[in-house]
């Protein structure tokens, strides 16, 4: 309790320095959590990508109805597959003709139906990774009656390349900002320690243990970290109410974006841990 009192007294006494440190930590944690929000939303968006893509399985010409049934059964048995629909080449031609509307005269140049029998395969919406889809396509391609498989491979690959790039960038920014916050706490606590040096000398003469001398600084670093985190949460809340909500209302394309409420609770805890870490580093190698 006495250590807590000393720490609070010191934070109040050095209010400008403490406030500046808290503000810097708040801004850094806000940037850090903003990157986390972007990564989180991209992850959320891309997680449902396989579901949005339809895999078209084109069958070879002259496939018998037994072979057709065997392919259908094999695809249906796959755990990632939601629905499989057979599309005959006649039905495909009708659909093409409907989609071409007035331009359907171009089909008149063909004596026979140029299309193939095929299957439309819908992928499940939950728990399917891109790797699973790729594996499924390879498997279908290897079937004897299958001529080719078409899907949004290029789109999927570029989205996933973007996602991994963003993850790496997020991680790098995260490391840099975690180190910066720790460094701010480290510097603040070290300055406070030197400002209290005479007081600490008296404590030592009166028989204070190392822990007694250090505890107020550990608490002080943690307090600065907590309040820095609270400021960061405040900024995140402000960003949500004054920017993101308006952005979603004006541009529906961003409607998928959200900020998990846990991020707001987590920031003060993260701030506290980094503040404590900075204090431990600041006093760790000091001899007194």
């Amino acid at each position, binding site marked *: 309790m*006495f250590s807590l009192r000393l720490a609070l007294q010191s934070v109040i006494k050095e209010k400008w320095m403490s406030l500046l440190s808290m503000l810097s930590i708040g801004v850094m944690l806000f940037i850090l959590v903003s990157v986390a929000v972007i990564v989180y939303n991209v992850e959320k968006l891309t997680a449902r990508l396989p579901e949005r893509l339809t895999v078209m399985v084109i069958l070879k010409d002259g496939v018998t109805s037994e072979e057709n049934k065997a392919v259908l059964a094999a695809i249906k048995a796959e755990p990632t597959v939601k629905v499989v629909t057979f599309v005959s080449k006649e039905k495909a031609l009708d659909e093409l003709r409907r989609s071409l509307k007035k331009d359907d005269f171009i089909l008149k140049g063909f004596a026979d139906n140029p299309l193939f029998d095929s299957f439309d395969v819908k992928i499940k919406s939950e728990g399917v990774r891109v790797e699973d889809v790729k594996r499924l396509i390879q498997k279908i391609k290897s079937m004897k009656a299958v001529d080719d498989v078409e899907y949004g491979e290029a789109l999927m690959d570029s989205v996933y390349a973007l996602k991994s790039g963003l993850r790496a960038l997020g991680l790098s920014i995260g490391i840099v900002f975690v180190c910066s916050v720790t460094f701010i706490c480290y510097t603040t606590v070290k300055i406070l320690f030197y400002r209290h040096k005479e*007081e600490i*000398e*008296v*404590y*030592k*003469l*009166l*028989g*204070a*243990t*190392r822990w*007694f001398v250090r505890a107020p600084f550990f608490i002080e670093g943690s307090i600065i970290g907590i309040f820095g985190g609270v400021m960061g949460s405040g900024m995140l809340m402000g960003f949500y109410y004054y920017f993101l909500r308006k952005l979603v209302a004006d541009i529906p394309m961003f409607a998928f974006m959200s900020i998990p409420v846990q991020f707001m609770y987590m920031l003060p805890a993260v701030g506290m841990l980094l503040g404590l870490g900075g204090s431990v580093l600041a006093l760790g190698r000091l001899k007194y």
Partner: protein
Amino acid sequence: MRGVPRVARQMIELENVSKTYGGHAALSNVSLKVERGDMAFITGPSGAGKTTLFKLLYLAEKPDEGTITIAGCNAADLKSSSIPLVRRNIGVVFQDFKLLNNKTVYDNIALTLRIRGFMEREIKERVHSVLKMVNLRHKVDNYPLTLSGGEQQRITIARSIVGEPTVMLADEPTGNLDEENEKEIMRIFKQINTKGTTILIATHNRALYKNTARKVFFLEGGILKGEEE
């Protein structure tokens, strides 16, 4: 305190202690003994080595040679983690008081007990009791800088005895004080000593130890020149 003998005849004992700073011998082969319950003086001109001797006694430094026993502990055997616990048995008074100017008289004295984890109720009782002893109960809420030099020194003494140490070290306790305050400080030391606390006072003021019938050590140039009673 674990490992600390409770009963020892010699409260302060130095055997062939030497200490050198950058080639200059601050103390050379010093041996002296102060028995439990004694009040002794150590005197000599400025630069005689009195302050160095005190630094060794309150374990702020280690001797280059020799052994030091204080409050029943051999300084050489102490781990650094045990030093704070031994210091709790040693009350120290300085010429420059070393009071915390941003804390009240009460908080300055209470600090000794807070460090030891005393409950606030007992702290209050003890602080008022020592303030009564040094006749400064009415100054309990004052800050050190609002007090005279003599009063500040009495607060320092109160702070050093509130933890009931077995040994008290006073380095030039009356160095900056007038004759009246000097007498008051010595009265307090005698009163503490009658309660059984061993006291060693460093001073270059002859008036303090003259006609006291106490043990006096003469130190000069880091060498113990003599001892008389």
